[in-house]
């Protein structure tokens, strides 16, 4: 059943259009893929001349809520995970996105936009394991 109290089709669509616009800008202006895990991961393998744009993109991403705050209060968020779970989740996301060469942005948004079969498989895989994980945590364990 659909959770009508939390479902936000219009703002989510609007945010998605912004994300798509950012990815389109980055592609057409700079010739690069807006894949966050790849951009971040590349900073851990510094290569001459390949660091500045990564730092600039990450800075923009980090600064976004500060800019948003100037216009409106930030949306209230709810983070259920405690410290241990956040650490385990972070490690898995870090390892998994680098081995799998992408995350929700690189495979999910950019990969599906260019109709890459590789990204379709990756997106199906992380969606599937995300569904299973939440099912196990919420409905089998708790």
């Amino acid at each position, binding site marked *: 059943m659909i959770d009508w109290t939390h479902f936000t089709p219009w703002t989510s669509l609007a*945010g998605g259009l912004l994300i798509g616009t950012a990815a389109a800008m980055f592609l057409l202006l700079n010739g690069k893929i807006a894949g966050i895990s790849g951009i971040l991961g590349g900073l851990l393998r510094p290569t001459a001349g390949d660091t500045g744009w990564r730092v600039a*993109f990450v800075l923009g991403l980090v600064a976004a*809520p500060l800019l948003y705050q100037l216009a409106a209060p930030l949306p209230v968020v709810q983070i259920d995970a405690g410290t241990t779970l956040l*650490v385990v989740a972070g490690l898995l996301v870090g390892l998994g*996105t680098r081995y799998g060469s992408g995350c929700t942005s690189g495979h999910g*948004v950019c990969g599906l936009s260019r109709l890459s079969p590789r990204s379709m*498989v990756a997106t199906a895989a992380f969606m599937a394991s995300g569904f*299973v994980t939440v099912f196990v945590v919420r409905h089998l364990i708790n």
Partner: protein
Amino acid sequence: MQLLMALLAGLVFGLGLIVSGMTDPSKVTGFLDLAGAWDPSLAFVMGGAIGVGLIAFRFARTRSHAIFGGPMQIPAARQIDRRLIFGALTFGVGWGLAGYCPGPALASLATGGSKPLIFTVAMLAGMAAFEIHERLFKSPAKKNA
């Protein structure tokens, strides 16, 4: 100019994540909870982003160079291998556990308190572990291939 555009793209991307609701982990896990009260919002985020992306990538294919210089760096990898699938499956488990993926975690860092920070540090540690593993188990020649 390229640096400025990268900063701007990151900024717009981050604003999109905030507007879409994806910086709220409970909204992400709400999408992943098919068997509970399901929040389909994330599908609308993906739909909106891919809608614009489809046009952009189609147009990009007609160009060999970016507007501010440099070649179009569109991924050439095509192989669907164990690495891709196990990596993506592992990522999905972490994503489902906390409701964070890399973008929203970074876009929550400046204002979200300690939780996104803890997640981001752990994520960077995971990425660093990958780099160390790659360096130890791959020959330098292969690494540059």
